[in-house]
């Protein structure tokens, strides 16, 4: 099992996609400090969880990694949902593109499930408006 490779399979394309926007939107992954909550700067948080790593068999076990991806988009509050939805579209496009990939002979073969959301929320305290999508994934480490 190679958790880093699985994580990279989804994090790298998300980082590239949001980095290619003008202006680039920072993406914060697991265990990376997010932008302080008192700023109105827009940013993205991505959480990758490993729900199941393998399945036991009668004699050993087989790798069969499955988990969830949660993407939260934070944009300025009080400006309507348009900007948030624009950034969500970038995230959804990345996830859908992951499903267009074909299985090769090395690396990680990665497929996401149906995308739930987006759901939106904005608390009184936070200066941000948040859009959230999540999906499941199945990853096969090929090498």
């Amino acid at each position, binding site marked *: 099992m190679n958790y880093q490779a699985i994580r990279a399979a989804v994090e790298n394309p998300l980082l590239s996609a949001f980095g290619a926007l003008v202006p680039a939107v920072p993406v914060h992954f697991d265990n990376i400090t997010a932008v302080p909550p008192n700023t109105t700067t827009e940013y993205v948080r991505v959480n990758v969880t490993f729900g199941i790593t393998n399945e036991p068999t009668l004699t050993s076990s087989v*790798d069969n990694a499955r988990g969830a991806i949660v993407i939260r988009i934070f944009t300025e509050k009080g400006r309507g949902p348009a900007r948030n939805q624009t950034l969500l579209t970038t995230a959804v496009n990345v996830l859908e593109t992951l499903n267009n990939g074909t299985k*090769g002979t090395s690396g990680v*073969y990665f497929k996401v499930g149906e995308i739930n959301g987006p759901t939106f929320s904005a608390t009184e305290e936070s200066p941000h408006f948040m859009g959230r999508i999540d999906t499941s994934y199945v990853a*096969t*480490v090929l090498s």
Partner: protein
Amino acid sequence: MPAHNVVFGKPMATTVLSGTSGALYYKPAGTTGSFGEAGVNTTTDTITVETYLNFKVGDPVKFSVINSQTGGSGSGTLPAGLSAGTTYYVIAYTANTGALQVSATAGGAAVDITDDGTAAAPNEFQVAYADFAVVGQVRDWSFEISRAEIDVTTIGQTPGQYVPFRSYISGFGDGTGTATVYMTNEDAALSNRMVQDVLQRQQTGAAFKLYTDRVFSGGTLSESLSRSISFDAVLTSASLNINPDDAQSVTVNFRPAGTPSFDFSTSA
């Protein structure tokens, strides 16, 4: 267990085939035709195959010489202008006459056929859909094979401590398959064509290739690294389910027309 999965004398976990790299490939029904020397018209660059087949404009086809008695490869020479192994594209097919024209390029000019070729009986020329083509937007497929069993238990056995067991011998094999396909707005999509193929009277040429694990190497589908089941097929039904809540989909049921070919190894 392969040697590369053993480290320090302990087995490492292998990676399960989760099915997520599966795929469904198809050759449409009514896309295999045959013709003899008399079916070649060098003036109009037309060949005449069976009527009411299902060739569509743009279909990729290949020509060969076959033995009509065995179904295997035959001896003879294709009409000049047509080469075995080369992919041509249908540019016209008239169902009620069987007249077929092909081009070297999709939508191009008709191939210039300059002689009738030679195919002495039982040999004949064959034109067939070139290769399996991927069916897009397949939600899932399933395939089941079964074997009939015949009860050959004899009665009148001498009773002992335990009850006598029934005896069986194996009977004929059979199979059924199902594919659920999301409908798209592409008229030429194979998924849409599968629905019509159910009612195609002559389903000759219909075949499925069900990939349990489709692997690409260098950007090209690698048959040697992939695992698949392929067979000539009969399409038996199509069930459309249109409702306000779900994406439009169709479930196509099929049955092998012969013994399936299993390629579950990752070597050629």
